[in-house]
């Protein structure tokens, strides 16, 4: 009940389930306990995700940006129930994944997949490519046995991997090829939703482009829905339909891509976007330099979490946490500067 209330109070996302949304996240919280001492007592919590709400429509891509340690990856993993939530709801096709029992969870697993940032640690070094891709396919019986080989071949070809790579082992591939294998592994389970957890950060730029384009191609072919986590704003701009900006466990701004990039409202988003490099040596960048370092998520500041570094900080920001404000369209921002506008 408390959660429902919060959402109503924030007024971001209607409590009712919208059929167009594949994924709805409602006030999701993920706290990690800090244990210390001989008896491992919990002395505090790292508030990695501190009450965020958003939704993703079927067949669209949501970008999630923010600096390191702001909780992007935790969000991505929690909505796949790879971590147990602290509070909130994650609705996948209208069903709360944290309320699922073993059998339901087993049916849910292939529908939502993840692609990792590090293509080196995300592939078991002692299995050949075919086994990496096909292992879970067999487990879940995605295709009949007799079509298994052809199916793997097709998935590999879709991901730009020749058939004869099947018997090779991960150590024989370059980073880009490995990332293709990861994508193939995710794709092979015929998912509806893929969390792309900084899938191109570890790759050089030319490969990045290939992989991004692969993601886009696959989306149009399979009708996939992505949560695209990145700290690379230009990549996010290129691939996303909507973008969320996270700061210290909070979703501070959330809007369609074009709106956000053309008109960022939150001071943090502005500062972030001012750092996008422009490929013009003559251009004078007007960068907003943020003072100080990002505070500890274990002990976030009172009031607005950003107030310690905000250039437009007011008295109220130091004591009262700002509500999420809808600025027209689907533009949501969490800042006291716009509290009045809504009213």
């Amino acid at each position, binding site marked *: 009940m408390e959660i429902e209330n919060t959402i109503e109070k924030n007024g971001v996302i209607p409590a009712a389930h919208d059929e167009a949304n594949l994924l709805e996240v409602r006030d999701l919280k993920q706290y990690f306990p800090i244990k210390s001492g001989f008896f491992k007592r919990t002395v505090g919590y790292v508030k990695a995700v501190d009450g965020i709400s958003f939704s993703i429509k079927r067949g669209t891509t949501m970008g999630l940006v923010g600096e390191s340690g702001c909780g992007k990856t935790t969000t991505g993993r929690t909505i796949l129930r790879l971590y147990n939530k602290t509070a909130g709801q994650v609705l996948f096709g209208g069903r709360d994944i944290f309320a699922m029992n073993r059998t339901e969870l087993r049916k849910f*697993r292939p529908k939502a*997949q*993840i692609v*990792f940032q590090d293509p080196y640690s*995300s592939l078991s*070094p002692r299995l050949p490519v075919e086994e990496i891709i096909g292992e879970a396919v067999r*487990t879940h019986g995605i295709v009949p046995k007799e079509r298994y080989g052809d199916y793997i071949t097709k998935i590999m070809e879709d991901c730009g991997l020749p058939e004869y790579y099947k018997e090779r082992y991960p150590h024989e*591939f*370059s980073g880009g090829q490995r990332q293709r294998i990861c994508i193939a592994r995710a794709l092979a389970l015929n998912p509806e939703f893929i969390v792309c957890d900084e899938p191109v950060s570890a790759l050089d730029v030319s490969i990045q482009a290939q992989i991004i384009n692969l993601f886009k191609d696959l989306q149009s072919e399979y009708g996939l829905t992505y949560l695209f986590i990145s700290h690379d704003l230009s990549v996010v701009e290129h691939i996303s339909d909507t973008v969320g900006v996270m700061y210290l466990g909070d979703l501070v701004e959330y809007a369609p891509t074009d709106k956000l990039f053309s008109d960022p409202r939150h001071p943090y988003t502005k500062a972030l976007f001012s750092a996008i490099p422009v490929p013009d040596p003559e251009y004078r960048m007007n960068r907003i330099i943020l003072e100080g370092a990002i505070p500890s998520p274990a002990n976030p500041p009172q009031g607005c979490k950003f107030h310690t570094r905000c250039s437009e900080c007011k008295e109220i920001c130091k004591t009262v946490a700002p509500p999420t404000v809808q600025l027209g369209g689907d533009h949501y921002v969490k800042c006291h500067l716009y509290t009045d506008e809504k009213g």
Partner: protein
Amino acid sequence: MEDKRIKSIQELSENGAEIQEEEIINEESSVCAAGTTPAEAEITPADGEEQKLDDARRVKYLSPTALVFKRFFRNKLAVTGIIILAVLFAFCFLGSAIYPYREADVFMTIREIEFDYSFAKINEDYNNVYSENSKTGAVIRTMTNSYIKNDMQPYGLTEFGVTDPSSDKRYVIRKLNDNIYTVNFEDFDDILSYKTEEAVGSYTARGSRFIVGSGVSEELKNALTQAFEDAGGDVLAVSVTLNGNVYTLSDGKIVCAYGEPVTVLRTDDVTDELFEAAVSAAEGDFSHGGADYKKAVSSGLVTVSTEKSYVDTVATSYVFDRYDLNDVLTDNFRFNALIAIGLGNADFVSDSHAYGIYSEGENTVITCEKGGKTVPYAEPTVYSVRRYSGQDTISVATKKAMSAIMMEMKEEGLVSAKRTIKMEALDEDGNYVLDEDGEIVFDDEEFSVKSENKGMGQQFVFRNMQEKQVADIFAAPSSEHVLGLDGNAMDVLARIMYGGRVSLLIGFIVVFIEIILGTIMGGISGYFGKAVDNIIMRIVDVFYCIPTMPILIILGAVFDQMRLPNVERVIWMMAVLGFLGWPGIARLVRGQILSLREQDFMIAAEASGLTSRRKIFRHLIPNVIPQLIVQATMGLGGVIITESTLSFLGLGVKFPMATWGQIINSVSSLSEMTKYTYIWIPVGSLICLAVIAFNFVGDGLRDAFDPKMNR
């Protein structure tokens, strides 16, 4: 390789493929770019399709296992280790099957050693020779020697009477000569007995009543009744004479006094004169015709007996030497011979054989008839010469020679001497060697003689060189035994082979137990974490605290006490070593699994909805196996060392089962170690070699498994 490659390139060229030879040849030595490994080009033209030079299909990729093998076999040290191990295993397992000797075969050798041959001494004690029906009591038998030496000889007595306290019988020890004494049994023989009076019936008298008992004739009854009445009831006054016998009454009995004595026993020796003399003699001893007799009277029965004395036992300091060693001298023969010698007779008969006695100075020889000739049969002597074992198998001539040496040494007061004696040569069967004339061949035999006094009087021990079969201990290496024999005369090479089997196998089994236990415990600990992890890791800590060596030493002592058979000992030792060794493996596996569990591919597996079993056995365990193999290989050497140490300390495998440590243990004393280097140096080297080889292989495997190593 090069040739083959060029050849295949030529074939390709003929097929029309545009190939630059130089590039392909260079490819072999070049290290491939990141992410790929040096690859063996497998140039297989696809069906009709032309492959480009950089076509990835031209490169044959290897599985991680194959890669490990490839890297491993590039490591020269590791290959050396593998070869050493292969040779060791072949040596221990095949070698012992081929080698003719087994681990516990004891090898004997014939060696000339100076050994006790015989002893000689002057017989000063008097030993008893009993007659066939000897009645001498046990006390007298055991005391005879003492009576002679302590009671007779110091006082020059020739006769000594003793009474057996247990039977009150009298014996007289008489001296025949210095060496022969007889023990005479003094016995009384009844020769005559007769009756003078006898009770013939009974009566009852009360006042005037007088009744005679039954069994008495009517005539006597009437006569007695009459006499009773006549005497006026005084029974003592009654006296009736009937048929020359006088009947009187006494104390309820009718006593008949015979007119003439009635003979009960009369031997042939009793003459009428003797009879009359006996009758007339008073009770007690009397003499008749020079002989002593004894008369005893008991209620009218008179017994006359004569004292009889016969030789029951002969005590002598003589021993008999036989001329023919096949003859057996019976006690009867010796008894009769000694009496004859003592009495100075010239012949005697024993067991219906006739023997003659010839004396010549101090020597006396007993002869007998054999094959129509009179031959010496036996000789009594005070010199006792016997084989050291106590057997009497020395010829009379040799005995005499030895006696002479003894007497000579006694006179000169020598304690030890070397003397040569002419002895009959013996063939292999122990028979005399005869020459062409049928005469016995004599050989010179050198003896070292030594005087000994071991509480049984002085005796002289003769030692000579004898061929003896002895265990060939510590035999130096020879063509027959390449590494010689150890302190138990067992072939060292055979023991090394059989010992190696145990030493090498123990390592494998112990490490297998360690790996199984360690992987299960570490796996559970790492995968489930939290409380389970805590509990298991504390158990591991406890196991780490257990001091292995003291525990093993205690266990070794316990096994000793329980007298466990060797095979069970080995099994227990392996179990204990494995049980004490798993914590290291458990920590390693736990650490690995903890780090692997957080890897992205495990999260991907979770997201893919794989089962726990699949995650553990397909993703975790295969990634731990390299470390396990390295640890196991390194551990093998350690276990061999531990086993050797235990066996060396005598707590491991017990003799006669061999292990390498046990073989070194067989030369554990400092003097043996310095002297018999050929026993412990080879096996010590083998232990070193095995451990080094295991470590080489372990190092090689570790390097081969290391993914950072590209070569």
